[in-house]
């Protein structure tokens, strides 16, 4: 059994976020709301963001999906809270590069997100990991309009 290969995908920190998701739920008042699906597999995310003065004050998510998509959503909300919108978008770009197996900017500490690095070796699962980030980008770009 190739559990080493599996460990490359399912790192401990991913499983921790899956089992104990951070920022699970929904922000009620005055929040940006983004709903996104992954139509090929049925994964679903409901993301709410509180953006004030160009800073993501709060972020929460709800949804259904596999360990990769839900842990990625948990990590994403954790990472962008308190960050400026530009910084959040910059993280998103770095994350996208990481998923595509490209060289990415390693001058910024990615924290838990780094653990999703292995996903790039599982092409069928990349869309799971990027769903929450796509939702965040969509929400933030609507806010900037």
């Amino acid at each position, binding site marked *: *059994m*190739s*559990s080493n*290969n*599996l460990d490359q*995908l*399912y790192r*401990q920190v991913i*499983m921790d976020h899956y*089992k104990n998701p951070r920022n699970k739920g929904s922000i009620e008042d005055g929040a940006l709301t983004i709903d996104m699906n992954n139509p*090929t*597999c*049925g*994964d*679903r995310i409901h993301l709410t963001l509180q953006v004030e003065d160009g800073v993501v004050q709060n972020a929460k998510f709800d949804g*259904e*999906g*596999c*360990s*990769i998509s839900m842990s990625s959503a948990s990590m994403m909300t954790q990472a962008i809270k308190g960050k400026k919108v530009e910084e959040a978008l910059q993280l998103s770009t770095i994350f996208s590069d990481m998923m595509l197996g490209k060289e990415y900017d390693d001058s910024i500490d990615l924290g838990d997100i780094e653990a999703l690095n292995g996903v790039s070796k*599982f092409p*069928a*699962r990349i869309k*799971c990991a990027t769903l929450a980030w796509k939702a965040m980008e969509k929400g933030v770009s609507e806010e900037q309009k």
Partner: protein
Amino acid sequence: MLSKEIRSHFPILNQEINGYPLVYLDSGATSQKPVQVIEAIKKYYEFENSNVHRGVHTLGNRATESYEGAREKVRKFINARSTQEVIFTRGTTTSLNTVAQSYGRANVKEGDEIVITHMEHHSNIIPWQQLAKETGATLKYIDLEEDGTLSLDQVRSTITDKTKIVSIVYVSNVLGTMNPIKEITQIAHEHGAIMVVDGAQAAPHLKLDVQNLDCDFLAFSGHKMCGPTGIGVLYGKKELLEVMEPIEFGGEMIDFVGLYESTWKELPWKFEGGTPIIAGAIGLAAAIDFLEEIGLDEIEKHEHELAALAMEKMSTIEGLSIYGPVDPSKRAGIVTFNLNDVHPHDVATVLDMNGIAVRAGHHCAQPLMKWLQCTATARASFYLYNTEEDIDRLVAGLRTAKEYFNDVF
């Protein structure tokens, strides 16, 4: 069970995936192709390739003979009365859309009803949703029984004299349920409705007989029955097809073209606008030869046995739930399941790392997922080349997945 020798006809099965011999359990999505089909397509391109129904030259004749020969093969395969009733399409989806757009637009009006079920594939839902929206008709769903079967009482109470079209899947791609199409057709006809059958999962696995079923339309795809992708069939009763308008216009389907008016060829060609799917039809004919040599009854029996065995062995895994009919004789070789809290994508990834291919997701049946109260499931689907060892590998893979995720949690 069928002989394991059958596997030797499928070159693709003879390979390793992630270091393990491939176990292919996703035939419900698309089947693998035997060397006979691959060779038939190769032979066509190497010796016969030409456009059909136009050339005076020899190659044109060869291609036309092969293409129309394929149509006759399909006619016999489904026991249609005439080749005029056999239209080649791109697949089940195109076939069903053709019925909805041609027959549907001409015959359905405001206040009418279209009846489908909760176990339909998206391709047998959306064409009718669109038709209902366009015409003001009502789309109605027949409720399922708790075990994922249809009861004729529910069928009777849903179909009314306002019903114009009943469109139902023969074999469910998720539950494996085999529906009583002949009986439902009779009920539809009693109310003056036509019966459309989605045969995508039926054609590969059981003997089809459109005269016995008495259905008005039957749609199926080549690629799920050992044939190539891009070819499918729409069977329709001649008297209906004759009065229906084509939905694609262009070359090949015309009788005479004037500046402002044109007329259509006779059946079946008026529904085959443009250069047809010649190589696809020839590949499909080779697939039919292959399946018939083994025998559809034998294939059906083989799958029932595999489904029964899989259900028995999978049930020994604690926390594994199987959806659909409990009685294996009521289902085709499709076993859809979930493993505790482990998401089906994660199950499928673990299985893939062990060389086992299964489907995970909503299986293009989101309304059915809602009915099952889950967002996704995993599915193992069997075909003539699968063996008892494949099931053992699946069960071992599932145990690995369970242990792996139990460890992490």
